[in-house]
């Protein structure tokens, strides 16, 4: 039951869910939720390969830094969202397209 294949499938499903959330939603915070899912999928992959392939702990370090980066990313990303909301009263992603034209 606990083997590399099942872990890969789980992280694959997490990744696809993240992609779906990220593309389908137009709400910036919901998009950030999707990004968290994707980051978790990759961290899970690192840990699974560490356990089932070589059993040193470098993958754990990598996952640790993924978690750190995800937290920093969430902090800055949500800060931008809040600033944007203060300016535009909106967190719709299409409102943030002022650089387009």
């Amino acid at each position, binding site marked *: 039951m606990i083997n590399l294949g099942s872990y890969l499938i789980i992280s694959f499903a997490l990744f696809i869910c993240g992609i779906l959330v990220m593309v389908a939603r137009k709400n910036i915070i919901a998009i950030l939720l999707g990004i968290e899912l994707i980051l978790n999928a990759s961290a899970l992959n690192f840990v699974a390969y560490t356990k089932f392939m070589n059993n040193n702990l470098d993958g754990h370090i990598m996952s640790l830094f993924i*978690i750190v980066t995800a*937290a920093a990313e*969430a*902090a800055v990303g949500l*800060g931008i969202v*809040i600033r944007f909301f203060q300016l535009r009263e909106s967190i719709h992603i299409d409102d943030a397209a002022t650089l387009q034209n």
Partner: protein
Amino acid sequence: MSTLNLDVYMPVVILIVLATLVAGGSLLVGGLIRPHNPTKLKETAYECGEEPIGTAWANFNVRFYVIALIFIIFDVESSLMFPVAAVFKRFNEIGLGGTLLMSVLTFVLVLVAGLVYCWKKGDLDWVKSFHATKVNIAAKEK
């Protein structure tokens, strides 16, 4: 899979299930015997007798976010510090304590710089414009 001994996590799972059971069970048992006759008035939010106007899910002040932001940075910092702190004693015993102490000092002081920055810029103040109003009042009194 006999090599993976996960029995140590058994109490965690049992306790989580037990918490759900205790909470759910007491609500369920109560549901069988307690009265249930809701009225429209009973189901409004309690606001000291006034009729509630609008929803409570309004915008909140951004200072809550700034606090949460500083919190998450220090939370992450502490979770990185935990394993290093756990090996500090062992490193000290084999004579590497000084090196590790230097790296811990660097790590912490860089983050203290962040705290000092937020302090100087007034992000840690709950009442943001308190100083300004005091100055204004003093100026008006003159």
